[in-house]
């Protein structure tokens, strides 16, 4: 990714500008946020603050409440009680405004395989209200940022998994949101593609002061990407802080895996049914 392209993405409406006013609210602030499904409490009275301009990781085993938290923050699910503010906006009272301020990339690879990369971006640019006078420029800019310009007119079903994921990030950036939310961003990708995604996310944060919230159950991803993490277990935050501090609190030779096990009492399931199902759905979509 070129540095120039990344800088072009910034503007008066994004996180850089918000911070320059000196009144920057936290990118995300949850207040006793709770979500129940019948008798199951998926997220239990969560209080969390994600600083603007950080890469923040939500870690936890399958079923810990990570994806539910993200769905509530992106207004896909209403909270059962409590509330949250995203970019200073209340998720209950101002859901449309909240959605305007974030770019969301769900777990499954969800681009339309039969359409080209450019066509996929065009649809979402319109859904996000990007004005027609700047639409092409914004799409070209985001594709360039994710090194996809030369594949813009190629059908997405011909993309590799890593390219499709990069396209999804480009789609999420087309309206220049100050907050990017990614649910398991690199699941199913090979190490090279995974590293390429990490580099892009770091560049977005460093050059645009964008806040990035990710969920992951891969310790390597958390260590490679995140400034801070919250480890979730059974809907609650079991540990919170910068990774070096969490490791130091456990002992001089502690790894993030050790921290995870200490706070959740379980090991991370690498792969397993959830990943397999996700990968299968992804390949179905791209056909």
């Amino acid at each position, binding site marked *: 990714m070129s540095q120039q392209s990344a800088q072009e993405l*910034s*503007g*008066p*409406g*994004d996180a850089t500008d918000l911070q320059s006013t000196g009144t920057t609210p936290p990118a995300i602030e949850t207040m006793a946020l709770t979500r129940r*499904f019948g008798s199951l409490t998926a997220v239990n009275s969560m209080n969390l603050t994600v600083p603007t301009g950080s890469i923040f990781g939500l870690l936890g085993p399958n079923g810990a409440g990570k994806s539910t938290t993200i*769905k509530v923050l*992106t*207004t*896909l*699910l209403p909270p059962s009680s409590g509330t949250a503010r995203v970019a200073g*906006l209340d998720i209950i009272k*101002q*859901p*449309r*405004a909240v*959605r*305007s*301020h*974030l770019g*969301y*990339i*769900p*777990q*499954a*690879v*969800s681009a*339309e395989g*039969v*359409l080209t990369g450019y*066509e996929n971006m*065009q*649809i*979402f640019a*319109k*859904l*996000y*209200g*990007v*004005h027609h*006078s*700047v639409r092409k420029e914004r799409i070209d800019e985001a594709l360039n940022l994710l090194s996809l310009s030369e594949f813009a007119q190629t*059908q997405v079903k011909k993309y590799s998994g890593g390219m499709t994921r990069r396209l999804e990030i480009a*789609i999420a950036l087309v*309206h*220049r*949101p100050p907050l990017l939310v990614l649910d398991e961003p690199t699941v199913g990708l090979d190490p090279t593609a995974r590293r390429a995604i990490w580099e892009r996310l770091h560049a977005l944060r460093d050059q645009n002061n964008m806040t990035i919230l990710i969920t992951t159950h891969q310790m390597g991803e958390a260590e490679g990407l995140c400034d801070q993490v919250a480890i979730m277990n059974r809907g609650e935050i079991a540990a919170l802080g910068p990774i070096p501090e969490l490791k130091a609190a456990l002992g001089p030779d502690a790894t993030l895996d050790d921290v995870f096990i200490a706070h959740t009492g379980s090991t991370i399931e690498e792969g397993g049914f959830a990943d397999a199902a996700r990968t299968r*759905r*992804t390949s*179905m*979509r791209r056909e």
Partner: protein
Amino acid sequence: MQPELAVPACGGNKTDSFADFFRVVFAIIEGEIRKLLHDPLEMLARVVQPAVWLLVFAPVFSSLRQIPTGGIRYQDFIAPGILAQGVLLLSVVYGINVLFERDMGLLQKYLASPASRGALVLGKALSAGVRNAPQVLVIYALAAIISAKVRWNPLAILAVLLLVILGSALFCSLSLVVACLVKNRERFMSINQALTVPLFFASSALYPVALMPTWLRRLTYLNPLSYLVDGLRSAMLSQARSAYGLKVDFAVQVCGLAVLVLLAARLYPRVEY
């Protein structure tokens, strides 16, 4: 970046909201047209079913001379009915897309955008109309082959096209409502089948309403497909007269669509939970 060109915030004035709404509707329709253009074979596959009905079924039944069709040849009589059948069958399965989109994560992306839910649903519904529009061409071509007495007046053809788009949107909205309620592909298919067969046979697609028993004739008044068939028949065939009036046929499609879009828009985000 110009601040005024950034994403519109929540609310805004009425003009902006109106423009935003239809921008989303047309974006969804445009996406559907682009998908069709990338895969034109799908349209060719739609020729088979109406061709079998009009070139095989209709001549056989016509030779029996058992169905009184008011002086209209039976092949001509069922041509609009077969068009309505195509509209119904394709549109009622269209709602299953929302379940695929949910499983693939696309629905979440739509719902995480600031686009109005009503606009997303109306866009999906009218996309079904776009998918069905080429069937008008197929039916007119088949009607020409069987020398049906068709009104070739451009206004009549436009009325047929509009009815096909509205009817498709209506039945697509109905299937979206079903999909949003059942949330499960297998259940959706069985419920849809249970809906489609009565809707089709309780209409005048294959035989006149006058031949039906009284209880079934009463049901046809509640069946939006009856009005669609009636409108298509009266607009398409030079000898046909509308039973309800073309204005009523259009009004039923528009009002039914409005009610179902409002309902589907309420239910649409709930597919997620």
